[in-house]
């Protein structure tokens, strides 16, 4: 099992739409709108590191209104 946290920077004010789209992605456990220099943080739990890359780079970045993402893999 790999747990990862994805920091998402938006370029739209429609934060709820982004959060809802992100939460429907398979492997994403939760997503929250946060204050600060990123707009949403999502937690994913998947089988392999490759699946993390698929969620962050392909699926989340493919959502309209996502500017960029930064992914952190949990080590514990």
């Amino acid at each position, binding site marked *: 099992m790999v747990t990862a946290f994805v920091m998402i920077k*938006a*370029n*739209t*004010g*429609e*934060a709820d739409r982004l959060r809802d789209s992100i939460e429907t992605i398979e492997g994403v456990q939760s997503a929250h*709108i946060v*204050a*600060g*220099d990123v*707009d949403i943080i999502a937690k994913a739990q998947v089988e392999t590191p490759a699946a993390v890359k698929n969620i962050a780079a392909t699926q989340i970045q493919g959502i309209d209104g996502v500017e960029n993402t930064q992914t952190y893999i949990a080590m514990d």
Partner: protein
Amino acid sequence: MAWYTGANLLTRAGVLVFMRFVIIGAGRVGLRTARVLRDEGHEVTLIERDESKIRRARTQEFSVVEGDGSREEILEAADVTNADALGALTGDLNVNFTACMIANHYGCRTIMRIDEAYREEIYREYADEVDEVIYPERLGAIGAKNALLGGTIRAIADIAPHLQVVELTITNGAPVNGYTISELQLPADATVLAFGKHDQPLGIPDEDLSLEDGDRLVVLADFDVLSEVRQLLVGESPGKAAANAGSDATSGTGGVN
């Protein structure tokens, strides 16, 4: 968004009441805000962590607390406990938001600066601890836009996302040129607030005065009817009026994006 009764500058007796403010960030935005507040007689304490900015503020005789404005003990040192409002005006969103959370806990009215236009909507909706969101670049853009348009229309303030106060200068080509103020028929969602003959100061509108080239009207208008108002008073073609009103803006926050 909670209305804060202490924010009224005038008491019922009409006596001026001075307020206490804490401002985090003594950079371009924070220091200028502090100066304007002090000029109006209010008491301001700045919080800043950069040494050269602290020196600059102190040279201008501001009281400055040195440190990180997102830390409670620093806010306490700036006497946030007795402040009427806090302006979190640094360029760092995390600092600004944390400071607002703490100040809100102390019962302060909170104003938070944000760094990108799209975030206005997000913070207005989700940040319960923040009473008002400020995007300084938007205000700068109003000034730049007015200068570029060349003077017949001047946006004074965005009152609400759909409500703007504008000053318009009547031209010879305006449909209402020669009418009196009582004859003037504006759309339903627009109200005349003030009127000034050419070269004279603005005042409360007098119904009998006529509207002539160079006269100025201050109008409060819903964004939907702004271009119509402009067309009536300034005489622009509908296409140009719509372009000036910025009705193609996508963010829905007025004509100054």
